[in-house]
């Protein structure tokens, strides 16, 4: 029987992972900015600039589809969110505890996104229309509308946290089991470890991690587009 507190004790390095991921993203942005300044715009980009261009184009397309002509204000935030979550979710491959398996990180992202949604709503539809939207379709619906607005950031944060944290717990349990097999010196016990763990890492860290990044970016854009009026 595995004691679940052991799992938490193994991953005390969560704070280190948060700082490391932030530093990696910042370094990536600084390198891109320095290279971009020296780059000749008439020539096609290559290397890290090509990668940066792909990321920017992907984000721009995502925002243009949902937000129409007002995509330019929101694309930078969505891209940074996506870059941070991408590096954070993939950091589980390095043996770190992913920062997104910490509920403080995901709830912070959710709350920041919630603020951006409401600020966009106030800015693009005016404070009067924004407040009026709480009384639609009927003033009786006021408590329900307020509640649904409060729940949005929490649900975004908890969705990400639950996905990544459950993957981390499953992988850690797997390592404990394989450790037991090696200790008990079952024949060929130490040979199967490198064949089993990569499969689980591929599913929980890479596949589910990338899907959650896409979902978080898309949900941010969709919630913003619900708040701003149609053109």
């Amino acid at each position, binding site marked *: 029987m595995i004691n679940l*507190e052991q799992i938490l004790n193994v991953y005390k390095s969560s704070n280190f992972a948060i700082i490391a991921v932030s530093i990696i993203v910042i370094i990536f942005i600084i390198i891109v900015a320095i290279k971009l300044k020296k780059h000749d715009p008439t020539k096609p980009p290559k290397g890290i600039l090509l990668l940066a261009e792909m990321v920017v184009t992907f984000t721009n397309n995502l925002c243009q589809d949902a937000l129409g002509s007002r995509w330019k204000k929101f694309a930078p935030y969505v891209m940074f969110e996506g870059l941070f979550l991408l590096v954070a979710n993939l950091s589980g491959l390095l043996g770190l505890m992913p920062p997104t398996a910490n509920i403080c990180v995901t709830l912070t992202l959710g709350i920041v996104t919630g603020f951006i949604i409401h600020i966009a709503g106030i800015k693009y539809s005016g404070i009067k229309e924004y407040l009026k939207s709480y009384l639609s379709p009927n003033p009786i619906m006021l408590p329900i509308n307020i509640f649904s607005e409060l729940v949005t950031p929490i649900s975004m944060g908890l*969705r990400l946290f*639950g*996905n990544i944290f*459950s993957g981390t717990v499953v992988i850690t349990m797997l390592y404990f089991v394989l450790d037991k097999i090696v200790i008990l010196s079952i024949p060929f016990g130490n040979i199967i470890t490198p064949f089993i763990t990569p499969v689980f890492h591929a599913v929980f860290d890479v596949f589910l991690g990338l*899907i959650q990044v*896409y*979902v978080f970016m*898309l*949900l941010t854009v969709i919630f913003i587009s619900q708040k701003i009026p149609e053109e």
Partner: protein
Amino acid sequence: MNLLLEIMMFLEVNISGTDFVNGLKGLGAGIGAGIAVLTGLGSGIGQGLSAGLAAQGVARQPEAVGAIRSTMIVGQAVAETAGIYGLIVAILLMFVF
């Protein structure tokens, strides 16, 4: 509960000690976590339905693959939320007790 106590008495377990209370706490938390994880049933059914309907949509309109895929992923993510809540409740129960 009475039955459990009788079994414990029969086995001559010390039922007033802290071990017994902690054991009962663990038992309750384990059963509660198991029930909480059952929420995954509903979200799994919902995700399967949306994937099946997306496959139908792609078969009818192969040129709309991109839009259908992103819509399906968002729908599945929202459907998954209920299951994730159950999972979080289960994990909290296991960690707290």
